[in-house]
């Protein structure tokens, strides 16, 4: 049953949730025992069958967009998800209280990231990140933030979300600004600069426009963030979101 579910999972779920259910850039890590939108079999069935309103999670019905699964196949997928779940909460592996101190203190995370309404705006809000991302993903994001940039705005009908790319512009009057791309098209860019100011430009009117996939977030290596502190930080992210997510 789990094997059949794995096949179904690859066909229907892996596009967003990744092979093995470990999460990708799009969908949450499903190997987490604690799931943001419900943990019971019934809740999982409901979420797969009907989708989750307000998220990118579609309904697995045949009539709409997407090719769909039968009820039996949804149960196979749930069996598979249960088989890959890690039973212990990752939050238990670190000291969340110390993680919180680091977040708003020495490591400076809170300068750019918000947790439940408190913190900076330049980076993604992390209030629900702990509930949806694997420990491996969070570790990678800290150690090597440029490897996989976080995703920003998703527009209906667009295949891909905007990413947190770094942009440096020089305006027509010579002002240099650096920040993150909030959105972009061939002719315009909307950005938040490092002083948390919103700007919108027509590209042809800029003296210079340079975009890179080198994240503005510093890479925290073991010297600046020893493994124990990293675990504590992640424990804080997980605990905070398990307590109530993005409320």
């Amino acid at each position, binding site marked *: 049953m789990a094997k059949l579910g794995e*096949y179904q999972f690859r*066909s229907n779920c892996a596009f967003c949730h*990744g*092979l093995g259910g470990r999460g*990708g850039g799009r969908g949450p890590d499903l190997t987490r025992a604690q799931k943001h939108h419900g943990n019971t079999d019934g809740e999982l069935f409901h979420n797969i069958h009907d989708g989750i309103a307000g998220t990118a999670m579609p309904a697995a019905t045949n*009539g709409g*967009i997407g090719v769909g699964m039968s009820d039996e196949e949804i149960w196979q997928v749930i069996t598979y998800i249960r088989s890959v779940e890690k039973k212990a909460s990752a939050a238990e592996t670190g000291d969340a209280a110390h993680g919180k101190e680091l977040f708003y203190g020495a490591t400076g995370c809170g300068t750019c990231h918000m947790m439940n309404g408190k913190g900076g705006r330049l980076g993604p809000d992390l209030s629900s990140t702990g509930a949806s991302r694997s420990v491996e993903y969070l570790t990678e994001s800290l150690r090597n933030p440029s490897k996989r940039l976080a995703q920003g705005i998703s527009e209906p*009908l667009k*295949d891909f979300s905007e990413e947190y790319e770094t942009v440096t512009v020089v305006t027509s009057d010579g002002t240099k600004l650096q920040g993150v791309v909030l959105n*972009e098209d061939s002719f315009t860019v909307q950005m938040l600069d490092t002083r948390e100011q919103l700007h919108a430009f027509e590209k042809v009117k800029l003296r210079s426009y340079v975009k890179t996939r080198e994240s503005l977030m510093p890479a925290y290596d073991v010297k600046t963030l020893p493994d124990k502190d990293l675990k504590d930080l992640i424990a804080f992210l997980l605990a905070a979101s398990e307590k109530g997510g993005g409320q």
Partner: protein
Amino acid sequence: MKTRSMSARSKSRFLAALEMTVLSMAKVRGVVAFVAALSLLALQASAQVTAERLLNSSKEPQNWLMYSGDYAGHRFSALDQINVSNAVTLVPKWAYQTMAGGKFEATPLVVDGILYGTGQDDRVYALDARSGRPIWQYQQTLPADIRPCCGRVNRGLAILGDKVFVATLDAHVIALDSKTGNVVWDATAAEHAKGYSFTLAPLVIKNLVLVGVSGGEYGIRGFIEAYDAATGARKWRFYTIPAPGEPGHDSWEGDSWKIGGSPAWITGTYDPATNTTFWTTGNPSPSNRGEGRAGDNLYSNSLLALDPDTGKLKWHFQFTQHDEHDYDATQVPVMIDDGDRKWIAQANRNGFFYIVDRTNGKLISATSYAKVSWSTSKDATGRPLPDKAGAPAPDGNRVCPGALGATNWMSPTYDPQTKLFYVTAREQCDIFSTAPQPYEAGHAYYGSAYFPNDETQPFWGALRALDPATGKLKWEWKHTSPAWAGVLSTAGGLVFTGDAEGNFIALEAASGKVLWHFQCGASVFASPMSFAIDGKQYVAVAAGSALFAFGLP
């Protein structure tokens, strides 16, 4: 009866009034005006789209009489009022909101001032092409158990006489009265609950309405078929998978031919000189798994030359044999004449730009126009061959182009003035995974899945101008992300296209220089067209849930 006689009486009164106008005009302006007014009268009194008019569509560039604008599939407008010198001044003239969600992929028709279009969920409408105001609307009542793979989309209509033809998601072909939107006939082509559907704009040839089926994700057996435009009686059906005893049947393993897919979901083209219609086919089913269907899987991913009167196959050319990457060849097969060379040009979803001799189906050239990794070798004729190493694997295998292709269904254009072929190219690689999947009627059947490779740079796209004579890139204009908009070329020296960010863009056809752009507010998921009314040229395109018409101020 009473209504009919009243209507006949008022009609004769109307004609008498027109006649008086004609006579008075003749008195004022003389013989030339009289003749002109007479031909105007003839047009307005009948407004019949004859098969002859369809053949000679180039003689009436103010109209857009079929999906690609002409039988050659050029999507070229001979109108030149909007041109390189004034395109910068283009403004929106009107927008028509379908109020439907999802992808709006349709190209409208325009005939003598009336625009006929379709939208998402199989709605059909006629508009005053000058103002965008609706004249009638038709909504197909779709059952709950339809099986659209990829959105509740429809790409447009065909027209003949006083009927427009729509092919629907519940696998019906329907003739609507072009003046009222009333159903004239309604033919059921196949069982929608088993995965059969239509998304394409039909093609009218002579007195026949040709359609090709969608459903390559459901293990259908694909077909192209023709209906009598007058009655809705089916005249012929050509199965895109040969039955036992037919040539090509041995390209399928066991009973896999019965559920081998090979749909034909994009409108074909037609060469009246040889009375040949060209159609293209989609992926074999299941799309991401070759196990169980050993062989080339004819006529999946192929170009087919058919006799439009009988549906008999003249020849075929297969682009991708034994496909495992969903490389449907459902891109409009564009006819190009260069001296005595008669070609079909196709920028294929698999990343190669093919030129095929359309008199015999022989390959002339195949040149990659986007990043390709599924094929690294060619056969003796120059046809790219699939690599075993590129097959989908249980833990995923990165292959370019991705499953959505180096291009897709959005129309390319051929500009006879620049002699260039313009296509929307997508640069996206995917990880192809595979898993066994039993066939079940009406159930998705694709043998696993693909997903974008997150480890690579962001995916992007480009409008590319290709030279069919050499296969070489003349210029490209980069899109921010992979786009789904088709391309229109015009005698004004312009090409029009759109992007996923919602821009509708005019470029100089010769150089690729952007001259003008307009933000439509949502992704352009359609191919543009052009028409004229009152001597004024318009360019129209669907974006979001709206159809936009642009013109000079």
